[in-house]
């Protein structure tokens, strides 16, 4: 009996047809392709995009510079006299070209001045464009592109 069943299975291509049924089921289902430039992706809050530095709250402690495994951050402290009153760095360089987006600098920062933004479109024609300085580092979060994701985010880190 078992042999008969096996023979019937062999000549009826049952399992091959089953596979075809599975593929055909997806014919009518909604597609998963993301139409990226037309439909902006929805990014969760914790996305590690380009590094964003609030120069105003930075105290030039250089913790991020020490934490960075790739050495892509360079902070220039102001002179001693200025530092007593104004701790903001005179210059802050960030080479996005080498950034691993590992988040170690964010961990290290005592004031929360450096954090990952949600900007992810970092393709440039010229590698030099990936070198950011004090003026170019902060950017305005263009909120109209980013809806909050289905995962509501955890409270903002202080």
């Amino acid at each position: 009996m078992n042999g008969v069943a096996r023979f019937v299975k062999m000549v009826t291509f049952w399992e091959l047809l089953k596979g075809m049924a599975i593929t055909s089921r997806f014919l009518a289902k909604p597609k998963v392709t993301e139409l990226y430039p037309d439909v902006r992706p929805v990014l969760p809050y914790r996305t590690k995009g380009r590094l964003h530095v609030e120069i105003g709250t930075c105290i030039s402690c250089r913790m991020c510079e020490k934490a960075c495994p790739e050495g892509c951050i360079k902070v220039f402290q102001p002179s001693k006299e200025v530092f007593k009153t104004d701790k903001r760095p005179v210059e802050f360089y960030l080479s996005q070209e080498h950034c691993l987006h590992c988040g170690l600098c964010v961990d290290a920062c005592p004031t929360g001045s450096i954090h990952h933004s949600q900007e992810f479109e970092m393709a440039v024609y010229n590698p030099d464009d990936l070198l950011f300085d004090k003026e170019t580092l902060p950017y305005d979060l263009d909120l109209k592109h980013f809806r909050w994701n289905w995962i509501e985010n955890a409270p903002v880190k202080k």
Partner: protein
Amino acid sequence: MTAEQQAEKVSPLREIMETREVELNLGPQHPATHGVYRALVKLDGERVLGMESIIGYLHRGIEKWAEYRNWTQATPIFDRLDYVGAVLNCHGYVGAVEKLLGVEVPKKAQYIRVVLDELQRIASHLVWLGTHGLDIGAQSVLFYAIREREAIMDLFEAMLGQRLLPNAYPIGGVRFDFPKGWVEVCRRLLDVLPQRIDEYEGLLTGNRIWRQRTIGVGVISAKDAIALSLSGPTLRGSGVNFDVRKAIPYSSYEDFDFEIPLGQNGDVFDRYLCRVREMRQSLRIIRQALDGMPEGELRGKVSKIIRPPAGEAYFTIEAAKGQLGFYIVSDGGDKPYRVHVKSPSFVNLQGIETMCKGNLIADVVAVIGSLDIVLGEVDR
């Protein structure tokens, strides 16, 4: 009759028509080698007489790299070993440093690590399933598998901030708790995935073409597998019950109830079945971990600058590909003196010659697929 005996028996026809073996370079740029792996295959027609693995095309000096960074800075680079199982690699390194430091990881952090590890294992297996299917010609499985992996990657992005190489764990625990709503989404995924795995099995497991291509191909016996020190599903496909999660439990794996799927014949099909079943077991583990999530600290007591005492530690976990070991030596400084990685892909790759000999070229492709090698881990 072996090739040597055939060569000895000289027939008159053979004297006139002397045949030569063809040496074929499979790779380094080849669609089926899963990276820049080169196999020098000696062929008689399409039959493989001998095979030589040539590796090193993706050598990036990761181990040396780590010696020039301090202990914390070295974590992100180990994500890049096995780039489809980054969280697991990170766990391996971080676990080794914690062992050397003697840090107690809080229970909650351990559970979170288990959830993420198992998700990563499923993601890694899904990539393997897709590419393995594609190697043997089943196209759609790749896209279905990548689609499901995408959902897992979304979970990673929400939890860890990145999709592929998230630098998941700091030394001593985890960074954050799950974000709000994450657990519900994860549970929804856990409900969907078994049906999806059923679909893959419907496309492949029963399919007569798939069975003909995989059953009895690339056989390696349990004895050979142990002798070559294979690990992971590649070893378990031969019927050897060894899983680091059971044998040397780490990160509270002893709390969970799961089975180790075993094969019998050690052929490509058994390794395939092992991995597919392992995905189901991983789902079980994640569910248990989410259900039994304890409350508590996220991170153990670790100073900001890590200086482990002089000494050495070996810590091993069950990565998606097999046993991943980190042997670290400290001279008491803030940088590792030596980090050695026992990477499963590199070890498993040794079995390829035993498996491929006497098979056809098409089988070599199937065998490479079934070993699930990632060249980033082979060359380091």
